[in-house]
């Protein structure tokens, strides 16, 4: 298990390096530079600007410098934004995005697993229909459409939630729901089918025959095994919530890193775009690493085989 995790960590770092390098090359493959549009700046001022951002250096020098700065956790300076220091911008935006992402993830996992288990138990045909209906909505309605729908209903028509921006917990309700509904629906279907499969296994019948209480069998035995496929998809689901925040934060005007990232793209603020890619990749690779580690804890077979696939 230890060797596996170490190898997994090294792969993640390598992937991160590939992403950084590819992004760096891509950003510098664009013709012109960020100051090209500033027509009114004198050539002397342009030269000074380029020197200030290190853009006058040859590319390999810029690249090594960038990597060295990254290693010191210095993301550099933004070209367009008022705050300028990217570390500061990320430090301002990240807690907001993290809170929103965590809310969406918790909503998706808790809601999805609960709904899936209840639907699998089949006590309630209504719940089964609800989970199917939710799955259809979750798979069909893109998050940005769901978000506009929610705003129309709850903010404009009913007036019970604030339309946009950030501040109180009421501001987080609609964005978290818009981000979390699709993964919730997916998890509900996955949990349901996986739970149905486990409930049909012999060990469940054996446990019931031994006289264990129904809930103990369902929660302690069947659910534990049924959760394995759920844990494997947590990585992709987190990725979906992370990238989904580009869109959702823009609709709701939430000052998180998703909004910063998209703004940096329309502003052609290359250092900020690079930093955005790096921050997102680190978050994602970290999640995938944690999911793999968690998978090893839950499923002892992986520790023996040392492989997830």
């Amino acid at each position: 298990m230890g060797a596996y995790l170490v190898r997994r960590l090294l792969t993640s770092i390598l992937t991160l390096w590939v992403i950084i390098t590819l992004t760096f090359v891509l950003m510098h493959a664009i013709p012109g530079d960020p100051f090209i549009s500033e027509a009114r700046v004198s050539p002397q001022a342009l030269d000074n600007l380029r020197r200030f951002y290190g853009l006058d250096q040859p590319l390999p020098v810029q690249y090594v410098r960038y990597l060295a700065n990254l290693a010191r956790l210095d993301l550099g300076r933004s070209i367009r934004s008022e705050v300028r220091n990217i570390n500061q911008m990320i430090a301002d935006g990240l807690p907001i995005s993290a809170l929103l992402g965590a809310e969406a993830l918790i909503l998706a996992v808790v809601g999805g697993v609960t709904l899936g288990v209840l639907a699998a138990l089949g006590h309630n045909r209504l719940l089964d229909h609800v989970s199917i209906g939710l799955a259809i909505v979750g798979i069909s309605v893109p998050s940005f459409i769901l978000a506009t729908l929610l705003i129309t209903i709850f903010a404009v028509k009913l007036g019970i939630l604030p339309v946009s921006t950030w501040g109180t917990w009421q501001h987080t309700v609609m964005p978290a729901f818009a981000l979390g509904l699709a993964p919730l629906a997916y998890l509900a279907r996955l949990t349901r089918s996986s739970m149905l499969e486990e409930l049909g296994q012999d060990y469940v019948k054996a446990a019931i025959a031994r006289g264990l209480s129904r809930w103990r069998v369902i929660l302690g035995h069947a659910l534990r095994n049924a959760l394995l496929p759920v844990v494997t998809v947590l990585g992709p689901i987190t990725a979906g919530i992370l990238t989904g925040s580009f869109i959702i934060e823009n609709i709701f005007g939430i000052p998180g890193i998703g909004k910063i990232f998209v703004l940096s793209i329309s502003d052609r603020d290359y250092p900020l775009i690079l930093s955005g890619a790096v921050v997102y990749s680190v978050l994602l690779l970290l999640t995938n690493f944690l999911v793999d580690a968690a998978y090893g804890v839950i499923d002892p077979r992986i520790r023996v085989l040392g492989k997830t696939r």
Partner: protein
Amino acid sequence: MSHPQPVEHAQQPPAELFRPRADAPARGVSAAPAGRGRDVVRRLRQNRLAVLGFWIIAALVVMAIVGPFLVPYAYDEQNLLEGNEPPSARHWFGTDDFGRDVFARTWTGARISLFVGFTAAFLDLVIGVIYGGTSGYTGGTTDDVMMRVVDLLYGVPHLLSTVLLMVVLGPGLFTIILAMVATGWLGMARLVRGQVLQLRELEYVQAAHALGVPSRRVLGRHLIPNAMGPILVNLTLTVPAAIFTEAALSFLGLGVPLPLASWGTMTAEALVTILTGQTWRLFFPAFFISLTMFAFNAFGDGLRDALDPRLKR
């Protein structure tokens, strides 16, 4: 090929047992692949959601082709005197703030969505089959190296890489497809490689090799038909994913350039109507994009269940 010799002293069964029953399905050995295909279609037709999805897709394709011709307005034709009109006999889906016909724009959007979806899925398939097939069939070090490359790139979230590439490539219909395919083929390559590796080891494939069936015939007769199922399912589910990505990019202003009408740009332009009340401008693109996503996903899920009943969810 030699058949087992009948044991001489065994009692011969009555000859009538060897005649096909009158009600037996007419199916010779050579018709086996066709029979399998028929089974899949039969199971697919029993799945009401999948059938519904199929007919919605068919209707969308037809409307994408003929829709823009049904009204005497071009998608980018402005008429400021008829701006923001609700749906009527003249403008079936109403008009937007520039007086452009929402019906014409909606079906132009359908063309873009379906074109992007089908093209991206097709290119993913071609690259994925060539790369994954080569990797799986060659095996050894080549396979290792090829798959490590895929693993490294696979760690990048799809929307992130697509957005970054769009920054470099600039807005446009073909740049979107290019940006999506740049990392979109990775999943298909993994799938194809897995299929080839798995099928190569199966006994009937080895038996075919051992019996001297030429490699090409093994590939065409056994490997490809049996790998087709999961590939087809993946293909069907790639289409809505690509359509979603295009809409999301266009929604963010990174997609097709104006004045082209994509469902994503139409939704973004209509956001303001939440407050001003011309809800039809938001409703039509939002409705049709959801309908499209639903249809492809329902059909793809149905296809997966039909191809492999054991995987029934």
